[in-house]
């Protein structure tokens, strides 16, 4: 008897290709679990059982015909509801789009379709991606499977909760300021924010276009590499996607960390909660014990990250949300929630004539300095290790009346978005039974290296095996 909560992409793919289980059977198990747990976790906005069964049957046909399939074939996945799915309602977790059904698939969605994954459903998140807790969803917050009184982190809250609760084996996320990494850390899963331009944004509802990157979450580092193998690559429909060659991210993942130089950016540890600090430093020590060299590095402009981010991001948000005026589709503008309204007002102000130079333009200059900090640091070290979140998963409702406190949840994640560099959130332990994640941050297009380091650490620690009690 298989316990599906043990399954990874690697093991499930093995089961299917060895014909120990049919894709349809697997899909049904996950669909049933999603159906039940969604009532507790509110992690899905839409479940797509009919589509999942169709997709699974097709995979079974392919297997029966003896076709060689991709590692993701037959793997149940969940899609954040910002990803346009042809014929499947895509709400952006906002009342504005509560009845919107796209006529086309996002590039990543069509890639996942082509890879014969099984769509379990569309996950809940902070409306439009605005938030760090999932509480800004117009369809109610998702809850953390490790403690149902607490948030799963956001904005990709439903994806992280759905995955941690094993209602899928992988889930997509977006990451504009930490939206894949933060929930990954809060839910004990692996979350990637790829290099800007590594994964096509086409068809994913835009939040802040110069910061948005298309990530995903998996239970293990290896699984994460398998998904990126499918999603990465240039897309003619996304002019900002990179033509940089896509390597096989799983190839050589087990090389270890011997000889690698890892930097600890001292600004990230100065005011850090002592317990979290200890967990992160223990992780660094673990990597040191595996042969890596750990040194302290400086990222002097770190402190300006959140301020810079909260100028650029709302500016772009205000422009990107302008099309939701109720004229062509969706509901009228009064359907926007308060956080979206707040960002529209902020961004409209910072782009206004007379203020543009002082806000947007200045923020873009600071952004460049932040990126230069990283480039300088990467001359001396191969990657950086730092915390994902300044706090443990907090209680639902704890910060909803204090937007500024909520924004500070992004303090350790936004700088990678400002710099455009990749970062991988990897589980690194528990405090009071609540998950803690660390970030491995590297230079442009260093995802392969991040996986190699994450994998080495994970093989030693296997935090992913600590499942939530639900």
């Amino acid at each position: 008897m298989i316990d599906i909560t043990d399954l990874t992409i690697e093991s499930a793919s093995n089961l299917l290709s060895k014909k120990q289980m049919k894709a349809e059977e697997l899909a049904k198990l996950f669909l049933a679990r999603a159906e039940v747990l969604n009532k507790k976790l509110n992690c899905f906005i839409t479940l797509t059982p009919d589509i999942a069964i169709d997709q699974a049957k097709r995979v079974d046909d392919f297997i029966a015909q003896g076709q060689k399939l991709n590692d993701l074939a037959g793997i149940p996945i969940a899609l954040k509801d910002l990803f346009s799915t042809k014929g499947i309602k895509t709400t952006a977790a906002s009342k504005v789009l509560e009845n919107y059904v796209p006529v086309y698939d996002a590039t990543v969605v069509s890639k996942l379709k082509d890879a014969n994954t099984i769509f379990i459903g569309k996950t809940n998140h902070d409306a439009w991606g605005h938030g760090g807790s999932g509480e800004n969803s117009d369809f109610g917050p998702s809850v953390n499977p490790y403690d149902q009184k607490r948030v799963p982190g956001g904005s990709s809250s439903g994806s992280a909760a759905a995955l941690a609760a094993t209602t899928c084996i992988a889930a997509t996320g977006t990451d504009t300021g930490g939206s894949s990494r933060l929930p990954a850390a809060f839910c004990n899963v692996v979350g990637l924010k790829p290099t800007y331009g590594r994964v096509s944004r086409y068809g994913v509802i835009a939040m802040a276009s110069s910061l948005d990157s298309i990530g995903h979450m998996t239970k293990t580092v290896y699984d994460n590499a398998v998904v990126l193998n499918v999603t990465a690559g240039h897309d003619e429909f996304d002019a900002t996607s990179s033509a940089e060659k896509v390597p096989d991210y799983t190839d050589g993942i087990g090389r270890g960390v011997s000889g690698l130089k890892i930097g600890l950016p001292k600004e990230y540890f100065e005011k850090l909660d002592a317990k979290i600090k200890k967990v992160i430093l223990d992780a660094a020590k673990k990597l040191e014990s595996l042969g890596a060299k750990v040194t302290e590095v400086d990222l002097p402009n770190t402190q300006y990250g959140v301020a810079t981010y909260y100028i650029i991001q709302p500016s772009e948000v205000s422009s990107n949300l302008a099309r939701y005026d109720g004229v062509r589709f969706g509901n009228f503008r009064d359907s926007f929630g308060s956080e979206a309204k707040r960002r529209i007002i902020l961004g409209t102000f910072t782009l206004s004539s007379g203020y543009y130079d002082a806000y947007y333009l200045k923020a873009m200059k600071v952004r460049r300095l932040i990126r230069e900090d990283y480039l300088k640091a990467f001359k001396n070290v191969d990657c950086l290790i730092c915390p994902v979140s300044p706090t443990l998963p907090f209680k639902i409702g704890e910060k909803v009346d204090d937007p500024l406190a909520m924004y500070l949840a992004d303090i350790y994640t936004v700088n990678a978005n400002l710099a455009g560099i990749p970062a991988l959130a990897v589980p690194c332990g528990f405090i009071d039974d609540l998950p803690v994640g660390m970030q491995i941050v590297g230079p442009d297009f260093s995802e392969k290296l991040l996986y190699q380091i994450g994998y080495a650490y994970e093989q030693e620690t296997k935090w992913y095996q600590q499942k939530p009690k639900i």
Partner: protein
Amino acid sequence: MNKYEPVIGLEVHIELSTRSKMFCQCSSDYFGKEPNTHTCPICLGLPGAMPKANSQAIEYTHMLGLALNCQIPLSSKFDRKNYFYPDLAKGFQISQYDLPFSQNGFLEIQIASEHTSGVSKDAARHTPEVGQARTKKIGITRAHLEEDTGKLNHATIDGRGVSLIDFNRSGVPLVEVVSEPEMNSSEEAKAYAQKLQQIVRYLKISDVDMEKGSMRIEPNVSLRKKGEKSLPNYKVELKNINSFRFAQAAIEYEIKRQAEILDSGKIPVQETRGWNEFKNQTVSQRSKEAAHDYRYFPEPDLPPFEFNKNYFVKLKKSIPELPDEKFKRFQDEYKLPPYEIEILTRGQKVANDFEEAVKIGNPLGVTPRQISIVMINKKPDMGPASIIKGIVSSLTIIKVATAEELHEIITEILAKHQKAVEDYKSGKENALSFLIGQVMRKAGSKLDVNSVKSMLQEKLRE
């Protein structure tokens, strides 16, 4: 009225005739098509859709910039111009703000010199038919690339007034050419717009059809006291103009209207006024109070452009001979009067036909001038071969007449009309016209007037 000098600048929008739209694969040939059939997620601005720049449209814009003597920056970018209008799918228009594809150029127009002070030396180009004229340079501030909007159609359905949106035009590439406020009459503004249209036609980058809306003119008009050099402290923008005639009429109307306001001691309101072709007047549309703050910022979905010199070298080679160059060459090569060259070089087809006819006609003894006269006086679209055929056959008639009959006829007519001969000899020039008429009538066949005239003059000198 004479107290004031009009100050006029023009914003001209030109839809480029690329196959696909500016940022998507939809066909840009939208005119007269079933509404919303040339659309896709990108030009409808659906959630998640992203633009992809049409490189052909960028090339066309650069070609126009080069043809307008502009500086072409090696780096450029698109920006978002944020504003709300129901026909604007994304809630912003992708346009260009501070780094347009071309800037600081000029074009030259020919103007009658009484409108200006200080006639330039090269005014001699012009024939009496167009009066004393001179060349005036009009500065081009910029020529930038953007996307067109959809179109609103106001209709009544089931007794209810509704506005329907057709997005076929949404995303069609649109070049905006902005002039300096350097025109001082409606004639100059018209000449500028026509010259711009001619250049664009030469480049074959748009059909620049005012009626179809592929060329749209928005003049800015204000008045200053004659002799003043600074710009007036207001300006009125004119819209809804779909022909050169309306452009001129609207500017004329506006000059009068503003002069009356200034005469009464007031300053005209800074506003946008539309041309009402039925009332023949401009009507206020929007005052300055409602002016937009467009909140421009760099379009994050389109990386900035870096162009290399090689690209421009190639592009320059693809630019055909332009109207001014052609004009000058026709003057040098064919020694034709400017008035005729102007007509022959209005379009490339006629100019090419002319040159082809010159080639065919040369070994047959047909001169460029003879061809020019035929092409200008008759329909010019008969094709070079038949032009020459026509000229050669008429020459043949003249030769026959000259040799045998014409001499006799002239002698006969001169003998018959002694009074006219005397009149002519005593200096009455129109007596000659009378005699020519008599000869022509007597001959009864098609004769070349000039030949008859010169032969008569010869005879009369005897």
